[in-house]
């Protein structure tokens, strides 16, 4: 029987935006718990922001001047920043959320500095350079001081819903192998992206979409699921460095080249001169380079052992000094190994990898979902960046986390406690333990491998109707297989097969939602590229696609209904990118 643990006002799942939400909730007097998959201040997406070398927190220039960080962009305003963000998001952003973003980013940065985070310098006009682990340490220390409780090494599985609202959740404590139920008046999901459903991804292993999938199962909605940013140049070989984004960091600073099978540059094949310059010299490189690299690979001109080559010319030797000066951390550890290989003429094989999920749980600007008592923040929530994130995901999780914690505490204050429905817990337990009673079924790893084949085939940078329909069919088959899974490992204590079963239970529904949304968006916009509809169509697709229920019912919300809206009409994809960039200038 699932053990029922303590009762809380607010339970937060995740420890990036989740930590910030917990701080807000605790400041309002809510009894607050953070459930975290790994170690609280050393896990999740925040840790790896900017490869833990150069994460950035974005903020308007006026606030940066006020905080004494930089006077370089003093004439900037939150309003001007807002205008840029809507264009960068190809007009799909939730503009009410975006207002919160631009107006409170300065406060979020200021408090983090008060809580002990160090500012390393500036990265761009609106980007402050920081270290991911430093952000986590500052948030963790503050949350602890406020009396927030923590449950680490614990995987969240499901929300418990009764009387039409959330009343708790279930999770698996990996270290003792026990399923636990926790009673909560309000729950904040801050579980990050669903990186794990792609073989090629730049995240840590804890990002498997548990929040999005549980929200969908419990009756909340998902929005913009087709929007996934790929980091264009993530290491795929050697395996030892797989998932590392160092080539992206270096290439963005101008070092090195991307070469195809025969050692030629190729980006000009796919991008007009103007757009190519953007791809090589601006923050837009994620979206544009991913398209170019993926195209070259799809044309059969990729490197012989996967991806394309990232190489740096050995001469002039001074280049290397320049680079070490800019990135001192290249002189040690894994980075030193990679740089040594590059300096000896070996290339790193790189390719686009799932990097950031613009879509996620649908939320209103107060971070409430469509299910009473449920809130979401950070990457697992959708809507802030529309069809393309150029600005900082760290700022997003801070802004949304702070708001979600406030909203959840307010909800909890006005809510009666509901005792956890035993029958629901019993049937959940049966489902979560089912594979232990099965025999002769597929191993979870086998299904995960299949899932990775499907996502690599259909959900990567360039999509088409035929491949997406195939993906939906294959994913339905996989969902059926999931019920037959059996384990070779019969222990419950730190059973990895069990964990992978729970992850598949989250990742397969997330993949289905992405495929369905991508199929419904018969145009190319921002990071969503359809080879069979290679144009941006403001007349027909200026809306957000929202999905609900396990059958993925669709509704559309007009984007930019109140606020800045673009000209109606239809443009070629790259032509529209040029148009957006002109508007930005």
């Amino acid at each position, binding site marked *: 029987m699932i053990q029922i643990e303590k009762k809380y006002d607010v339970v937060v799942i995740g420890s990036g935006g989740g930590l910030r939400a917990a701080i807000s909730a605790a400041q309002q007097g809510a009894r607050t718990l953070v459930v975290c998959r790994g170690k609280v201040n*050393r896990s999740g997406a925040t840790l790896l922001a900017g490869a833990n070398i150069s994460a950035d927190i974005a903020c308007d220039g006026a606030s940066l001047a006020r905080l004494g960080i930089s006077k370089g962009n003093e004439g900037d305003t939150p309003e001007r920043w807002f205008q840029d963000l809507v264009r960068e998001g190809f007009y799909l952003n939730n503009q009410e959320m975006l207002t919160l973003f631009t107006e409170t980013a300065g406060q979020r940065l200021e408090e983090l500095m008060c809580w002990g985070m160090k500012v390393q310098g500036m990265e761009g006009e609106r980007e402050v350079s920081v270290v991911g682990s430093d952000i986590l340490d500052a948030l963790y220390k503050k949350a602890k001081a406020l009396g927030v409780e923590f449950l680490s090494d614990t995987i969240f599985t499901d929300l418990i819903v009764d009387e039409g609202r959330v009343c708790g959740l279930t999770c698996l404590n990996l270290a003792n192998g026990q399923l636990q139920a926790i009673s909560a008046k309000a729950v904040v999901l801050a579980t990050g992206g669903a990186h794990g459903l792609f073989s090629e991804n730049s995240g840590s292993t804890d990002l498997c979409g548990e929040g999005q999938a549980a929200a969908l199962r419990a009756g909340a909605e998902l929005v913009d699921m087709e929007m996934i940013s790929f980091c264009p140049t993530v290491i795929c070989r050697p395996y030892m460095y797989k998932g590392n984004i160092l080539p992206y960091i270096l290439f963005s600073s101008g070092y090195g080249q991307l070469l195809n099978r025969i050692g030629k540059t190729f980006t000009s094949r796919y991008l007009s001169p103007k757009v190519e310059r953007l791809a090589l010299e601006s923050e837009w490189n994620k979206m544009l380079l991913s398209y170019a690299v993926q195209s070259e690979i799809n044309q059969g001109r990729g490197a012989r052992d996967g991806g394309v080559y990232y190489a740096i010319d050995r001469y002039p030797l001074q280049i290397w000094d320049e680079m070490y000066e800019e990135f001192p951390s290249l002189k040690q550890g894994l980075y030193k190994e990679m740089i040594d290989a590059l300096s000896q003429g070996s290339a790193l094989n790189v390719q686009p990898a799932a990097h950031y999920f613009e879509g996620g749980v649908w939320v209103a600007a107060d971070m409430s979902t469509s299910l009473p008592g449920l809130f979401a923040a950070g990457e697992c929530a959708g809507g802030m960046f529309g069809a393309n994130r150029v600005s900082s995901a760290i700022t997003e999780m801070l802004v949304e986390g702070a708001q979600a914690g406030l909203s959840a505490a307010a909800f909890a204050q006005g809510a009666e406690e509901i005792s956890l429905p035993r029958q629901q817990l019993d049937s959940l337990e049966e489902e979560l333990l089912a594979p232990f009673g099965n025999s002769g079924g597929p191993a979870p790893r086998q299904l995960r491998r299949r899932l990775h084949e499907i996502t690599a085939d259909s959900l990567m940078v360039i999509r088409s109707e035929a491949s997406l329909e195939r993906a939906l069919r294959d994913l339905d088959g996989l969902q059926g297989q999931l019920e037959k899974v059996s384990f070779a490992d019969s222990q419950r204590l730190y059973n990895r097969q069990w964990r992978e079963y729970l992850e598949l239970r989250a990742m397969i529904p997330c993949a289905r939602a992405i495929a369905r949304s991508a199929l419904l968006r018969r145009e190319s916009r921002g990071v969503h590229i359809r080879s069979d509809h290679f144009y941006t169509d403001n007349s027909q697709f200026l809306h957000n696609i929202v999905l609900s229920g396990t059958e993925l019912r669709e509704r559309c919300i007009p984007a930019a209904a109140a606020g800045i809206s673009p000209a109606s009409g239809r443009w070629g994809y790259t032509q529209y990118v040029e148009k957006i960039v002109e508007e930005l200038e």
Partner: protein
Amino acid sequence: MAQELHVKVRRQRGPEEESYLQEYVLPLVSDEPVSVMNVLEYIYEHQDPTLAFFSHAACRQAACGKCMVKVDGQVRLACKEHAKDTMLLEPYSKTVVRDLLCEG
């Protein structure tokens, strides 16, 4: 490198259980760098899905510091340490949860 890797792992079913050594032999298919983490992942995927080691919230790039394991007596990060032709892997502390996974 040799054509095979010989890895001995000190295993333990749970905190109060006796430990024992188990040997795995892995074919080596390429001459590129291989980490201890790569080796453990290979064993899990192809040979023994019951082998427990830190994998549930791993950064894979020496930032989280959670994949510590004793390699031939020295505490190392599995993701950062290069595999050797022959090596002994043991839990890094006395607080074993299961196999190579320790508390903390």
